[in-house]
């Protein structure tokens, strides 16, 4: 307490105390150190860009929009410590951020217990089942939405028999359930699933089983360094020539890091691609501003953070105050937000962001610098987002039996 | 007989280090074991102390069998040994070393009664400190002691464990002649004062002659001769195996 008294006293002396700026604060926690540092940095850039744009346009509530960013080091206890410090020390009522689904669920639980507005930027199942408690939002999508979009495309154009290789991690189990469900709906023929431990670097041991089944489609349910290793090793082995590879959740950086291994036989699901022609004027402004400020085009994470932050400031401005959380939630769910992908809304009943899913295709050796994908299809949200009722009871994916071994 | 060993045997691979040895030690008796290097003195010594497993034969201590009991059980019963190379607790002070040894063995399990027991242990440790003449170095770490002082500390540790039978393995090794005589007198005095029975393995005939009630001569794993110190000194065979003029007629 003493430490802060000294701080405030100092600030008062430096700038005239009387015109103490009103303004508002929004605290986010991101794993800026650790294995996912690159993606977290992109999220931070997106959030900062949104905040700068708000401040250039006159700030919020007559003062500065202050974005507080803390490093969670991808550890849940540190993430919680940072959140508790922001809530108890700086009396924030609006928090956000986070990249790992697991940690965002933990912070969501904390937000429910302590009545805070929580805007998460990552794929997580906040709107689903027991997790939903009315305080949490996500500016990305629910894990099952990607496979929904990809399955409709894949089973129509790429073949019927499919097999999956999944990281043994909850987020990817949800995607697996979605694939199984859609496969039944669209007449796909499931040839079996292989679980690999999180952090696998050598995928050669799985190749014999895959070749034995030789499915039309190989679905990859993993992310980050695992996904990079799998793509590079499968393409080196010419697996990509024998079957199409469909990745439930991919990322701009992953494609960049894979280089020519990420070729035209590889498809991936994502929520945003900077070079998507359909988005039009709003997206061009966003991409130019982002590239000018950070030297590289925005990834899906950057866009999600940008939209999430922009929505928060817009809601605070519309609501006229940052402290009564319930009023803020109503504001957020009743307004439309101008996003790089067009104007969108957060659904009132389960706070899911109504946004489309992109089916992307690798460019392999034709990729120039950051232009690594080609948008094959944009599936509107109505086709992938389940109704509120279904989400509340985790239907239809809740009771889809997923392979245990 | 405080210690009685029958047909004690110990083999290291093919070599028979101790071959069917019978050995007795009376209460309060001071018995030395001498013999050329490799005669099996130290091995016999370690068998009795439980530091080495016995291959054949048995050992009785005050009538109970202690063959192949774990060394700490034998030590707890009162048969405590010192080591050829001084073994102690380097970074602990001399007093701390002695108070560890002075702690009653049965107390290892207890987490309470720290204070009361501590005073008793401390008194005993201080007494031993005086006996081995290390008062001046009481507070300095054991590793800072000179070679001679380390031998006394090793002896002190054994004494502090209030033994009934003291097994000494060349306690005066590496000491100057003056120090050796002084150490021999001290050991003899302590043995009498505490009515300890002692088994001493020693090379220095001077020490053996001065302190021992009886002397045992070992050669190639067997007892070669036994008797009063003067008898043994005059025995021609003993001189021969020591000076190596040729094989003793055996």
């Amino acid at each position, binding site marked *: 307490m003493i430490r802060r008294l000294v701080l405030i006293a100092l600030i008062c002396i430096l700038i005239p105390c009387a015109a103490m700026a009103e303004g508002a604060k929004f605290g986010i926690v991101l794993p800026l150190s650790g294995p996912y540092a690159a993606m977290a940095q992109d999220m931070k850039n997106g959030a900062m860009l949104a905040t700068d744009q708000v401040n250039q346009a006159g700030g919020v509530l007559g003062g500065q929009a202050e974005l507080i960013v803390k490093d969670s080091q991808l550890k849940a206890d540190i993430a919680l410590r940072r959140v508790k410090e922001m809530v108890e020390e700086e009396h924030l009522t609006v928090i956000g951020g986070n990249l790992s689904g697991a940690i965002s669920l933990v912070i969501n639980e904390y937000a429910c217990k302590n009545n805070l507005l929580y805007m998460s930027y990552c794929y997580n199942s906040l709107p689903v089942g027991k997790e939903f408690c009315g305080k949490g939002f996500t500016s990305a999508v629910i894990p099952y939405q990607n496979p929904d979009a990809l399955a409709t495309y894949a089973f129509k154009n790429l073949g019927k028999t499919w097999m999956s290789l999944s990281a043994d991690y*909850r987020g990817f189990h949800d995607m697996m359930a979605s694939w199984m469900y859609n496969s039944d709906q669209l007449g796909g023929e499931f040839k079996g699933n292989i679980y690999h431990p999180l952090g696998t670097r050598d995928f050669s041991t799985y190749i014999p089983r895959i070749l034995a089944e030789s499915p039309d489609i190989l679905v990859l349910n993993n992310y980050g360094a695992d996904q990079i290793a799998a793509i590079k090793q499968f393409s080196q082995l010419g697996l990509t020539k024998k079957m199409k590879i469909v990745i439930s959740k991919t990322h701009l950086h992953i494609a960049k890091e894979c280089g020519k291994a990420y070729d035209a036989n590889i498809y991936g699901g994502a929520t945003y691609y900077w070079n998507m022609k359909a988005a039009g004027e709003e997206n061009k402004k966003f991409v130019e501003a982002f590239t000018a400020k950070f030297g590289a085009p925005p990834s899906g994470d950057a866009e999600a953070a940008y939209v999430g932050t922009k929505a928060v400031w817009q809601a605070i401005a519309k609501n006229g105050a940052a402290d009564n959380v319930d009023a803020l939630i109503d504001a957020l769910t009743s307004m439309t937000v101008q996003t790089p992908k067009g104007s969108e809304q957060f659904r009132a009943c389960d706070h899911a962001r109504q946004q489309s899913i992109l089916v992307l295709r690798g460019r392999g050796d034709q990729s120039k610098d950051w232009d690594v994908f080609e948008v094959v299809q944009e599936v509107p949200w109505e086709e992938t987002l389940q109704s509120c009722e279904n989400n509340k009871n985790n239907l239809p994916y809740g009771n889809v039996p997923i392979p245990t071994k | 007989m405080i210690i009685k060993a029958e047909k004690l045997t110990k083999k290291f691979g093919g070599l028979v280090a101790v071959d069917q040895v019978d050995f007795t030690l009376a209460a309060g008796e001071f018995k030395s074991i001498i013999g050329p290097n490799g005669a099996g003195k130290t091995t016999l010594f370690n068998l009795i*102390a439980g530091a080495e497993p016995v291959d054949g034969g048995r050992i009785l201590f005050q009538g109970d069998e202690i063959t192949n009991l774990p060394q700490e059980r034998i030590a707890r019963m009162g048969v405590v040994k010192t080591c050829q190379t001084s073994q102690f*607790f*380097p970074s602990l002070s001399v007093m*701390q070393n002695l108070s560890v040894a002075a*702690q009653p063995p049965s107390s290892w399990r207890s987490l309470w009664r720290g*204070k009361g027991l501590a005073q008793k242990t401390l008194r005993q440790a201080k007494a031993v400190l005086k006996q081995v003449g290390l008062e001046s170095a009481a507070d300095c770490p054991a590793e800072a002691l000179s070679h001679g002082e380390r031998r006394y500390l090793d002896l002190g540790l054994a004494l502090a464990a209030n033994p009934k039978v003291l097994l000494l393995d060349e306690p005066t090794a590496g000491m100057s002649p003056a120090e050796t005589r002084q150490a021999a007198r001290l050991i003899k005095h302590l043995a009498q004062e505490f009515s300890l029975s002692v088994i001493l393995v020693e090379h220095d005939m001077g020490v053996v002659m001065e302190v021992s009630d009886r002397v045992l001569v070992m050669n190639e794993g067997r007892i070669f001769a036994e008797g009063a110190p003067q008898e043994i000194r005059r025995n021609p065979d003993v001189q021969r195996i020591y000076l190596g003029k040729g094989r003793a007629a055996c």
Partner: protein
Amino acid sequence: MEEKLENPYSLKIVWAILLVLAPMPLVLSTPLATEILIYAIFAMGFNLALGHTGILSFGHAAYFGLGCYVTGMALRYLELGVFPALLLGTLAAGLAALALAALAVKRQGVYFAMISLAFSQMLYFLALSPLKGLTGGEDGLKFIPKLAIEFPAPLDLSKPLSAYFFTLFFFALAIFAMRQVLNSPMGRLLPAIRENEARVKSLGFPSHALKIMSMAISGLFCGLAGGLLTVYLGYVPLSTLHWFTSGSIMMMTILGGMQSFSGPIVGVLVFLCLQDVTGNFTERWELFSGTLFMALILLFPQGVAGTIRQRVRRRMAPAIPEQQT
């Protein structure tokens, strides 16, 4: 020196530590202060094995993590009260430490360290996938109900300050218990085992049994720390079982000074504050803390507390300075 022998760890040190640490929330953020207390208990437990008994273990995260998970599961599945759940977590960790020590007590030095590492990695990967149903796998154990206690005073444990005092109460309990253990007849034998186990055996003390007992008590402290982390966080992260937790508790303890009572606590305080400050100030905090740690190792080989104590003693100039190995 008489006094020091009779009572190696006087109550004065314990009260001094408590007085220094109690007002931490005034200077540091309350959540950080709570974590410092929790990791201090963990470091004290770890140091009972390493600093006092000379047992090197690369796997103490197993007991800490076990304490977390068992307490967490007791709260969530068995709906037990806070105190019984903490007790269960502490006992579980103590038993695990006892079992591992009994199994591997004959192994020395690096081999024992490697067995502990293997044991803790087994627990980590068991919690990651095979036991996913129970432990929540990668997400960790969630849905632990909001905790509150009535016993000494009605405290709502989700409020940071009350969580802090709840943890402080157990920290005081732990620090008095550690002093009692180290002063007890059993405790006094442990440094002797560290120095020369064979000699301890030849003086009539069962050194294996002593080492097992020391590891078991060390496990109890780590289990208590784990349980308190669960109560404070209201959640159990999988990282508590990761080998990096074993590494950092080892780093903190040795940084602080292995062979002193307050060493591990000083190490935890220095390390966590350093991590927190550099963490706020830059994303590349690992570069700073890693480099600084290497510098500290090179400059203060006896650890921060060890060196301070030595400087203080040198100023009091006894005849022969006490060398620490």
